[in-house]
């Protein structure tokens, strides 16, 4: 469990994190979303005790991580930026981290095998690709078999197979009762992996919810109807509060009327309906909607392309 309480971080005049409060529960995968510069990485570094909060506090598994007796059993951390010495072989890097907690070569080899680095474990990390470097970081996070795993952009640089592997890994960890908290820019990926969501913008909490409730609360679901008599149906449904748009020949998109009502109205009027489906917005749509006012570094358009 990760408890973040009224957490703030200021760098000079710049407020990176501004009064954040949320709790990350064990047993589920929790995603951490926010536009660039929203304060995600700063928050993750404060959770791990690397950055010192200006005010507020963080507890990992019920205590301040910096006073933890067995830190590697409590928290496994993957940070976005590379955190390896380029001249050191991967295996020695992991061994050095593990030895602080009495972890030996057997466990190091096990983790190397698990992340798929067995063939290159004796090579210097400096020559690794982005994806291989990422696997070294993931191995480090898993080394101590921690109760809480925090990862900043774990799928960064991974190939599609690696992305699927991470998804399975995070879910398996949650299934074993771990607390799993990770950030990603890949919305579709996160929609498939995370059950819970923390969304921040400009250092403040925007949403603390499940993925489904976040999408439902942020965006309206619309109904798409396929019918040979769209003109008549349109007339029947036209009323205040409803928004009807043509989606092409024989297709209507209707906001503000439930599918039950649409079906009943069409039946009573004798309008044939071939297809009636509810279209939920994607997590990406919901995210864009929720954070549109808090984008720190937004591109302005494509006019000068």
């Amino acid at each position: 469990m990760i408890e973040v309480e009224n957490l703030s971080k200021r760098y000079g005049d710049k407020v990176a994190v501004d009064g954040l409060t949320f709790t990350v529960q064990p047993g589920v995968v929790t995603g951490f979303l926010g536009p660039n510069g929203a304060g995600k990485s700063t928050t993750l570094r404060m959770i791990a005790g690397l950055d010192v909060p200006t005010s507020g506090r963080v507890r990992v598994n019920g205590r301040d991580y910096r006073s933890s007796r067995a830190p590697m059993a409590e928290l496994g951390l993957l940070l976005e930026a590379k955190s390896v010495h380029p001249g050191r072989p991967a295996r020695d890097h992991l061994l050095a981290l593990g030895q602080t907690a009495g972890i030996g070569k057997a466990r190091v080899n096990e983790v190397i095998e698990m992340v798929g680095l067995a063939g290159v474990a004796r090579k210097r990390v400096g020559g690794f690709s982005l994806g291989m470097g990422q696997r070294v970081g993931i191995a480090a996070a898993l080394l101590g078999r921690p109760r809480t795993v925090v990862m900043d952009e774990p799928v960064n640089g991974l190939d599609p197979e690696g992305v699927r592997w991470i998804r399975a890994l995070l879910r398996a960890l949650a299934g074993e009762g771990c607390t799993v908290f990770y950030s990603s820019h890949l919305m579709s990926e996160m929609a498939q992996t995370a059950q819970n969501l923390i969304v921040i913008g400009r250092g403040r909490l925007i949403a603390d919810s499940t993925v489904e409730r976040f999408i439902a609360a942020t965006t309206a679901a619309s109904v798409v109807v396929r019918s040979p008599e769209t003109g008549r149906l349109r007339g029947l449904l036209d009323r205040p509060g409803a928004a009807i748009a043509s989606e092409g020949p024989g297709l209507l998109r209707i906001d503000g009327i439930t599918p039950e009502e649409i079906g009943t109205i069409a039946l009573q009027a004798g309008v044939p309906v071939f297809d009636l489906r509810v279209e939920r917005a994607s997590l990406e749509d919901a995210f864009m909607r929720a954070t549109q006012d808090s984008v720190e570094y937004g591109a302005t358009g494509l006019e000068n392309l």
Partner: protein
Amino acid sequence: MAAAAATTRPRIPVAGNLTVRGVLRSEWTKLRSVRSTWWLLSTAVILTVGVAVFVSPGATSGKPAPYTFARNTEYGSVLSQLALLVLGVLLFTGEYQSGLIRASLSVVPRRLLLLWGKLGAFGALALTLSLVTSVAAFVLGELAQRARPGRPHVWFGDPQVTRIVIGAGLVLAVTGIFGLALGAIIRNTAAGLSIITAVFFVLPLLFRIALPASDQGFLRFLPSNAGGALWDAALSPTSMTPWTGFALLCGYTAALVAVAAWRLRHGDA
């Protein structure tokens, strides 16, 4: 659900408590697993011993006092200091510049342990190697000069010889720790190396050339000269007494370690 899954597949703990011993082993693994460690240390050994064997006998003319001869065999340690300083500086700046420091501190969140671990591992290695080197330099230098006729034999037990030989090693090791602490404070390799080069090599030389002799008294307080007092004292009349000089070098180093500890303990990694 989650609780049920947790009981069906128990997670067997693999990580124990964070201990000083563990951090020492970790730091030793870090030290031994990068090439720069062995390049720099072998440079230090080769320079010191090389100067002792090939240069010092020729540089000692006539019938020198035993301490002058001993001091000459250790003269290479002035050059070796640079290697030890560079290695010391790199231990922390290398972590900061590669980002490794964040991984290190995430497994050692009691941050001072990381400093003590590095000090312990590097200190032990530097001290062992420096003492072995300084003794080897003297012994091999002495054997090399025995080949020359008419030279008196010099050995441990002659006035000041033991202090000079052991002292050269001690100063070398403490200098390395000086570099380590400086690196922890500066956190940037280029800046750290520039500062140690300036303080240990450029400034002493520059002051000596630029200032009139009457104004050079303060030079004995420079870290290089304070350390030099322990083994190079005989040749410099303005120098501090041996152990006072060494104490001052240790004092500088301790002060840097204290600042490094404070800086590591407080603020962001």
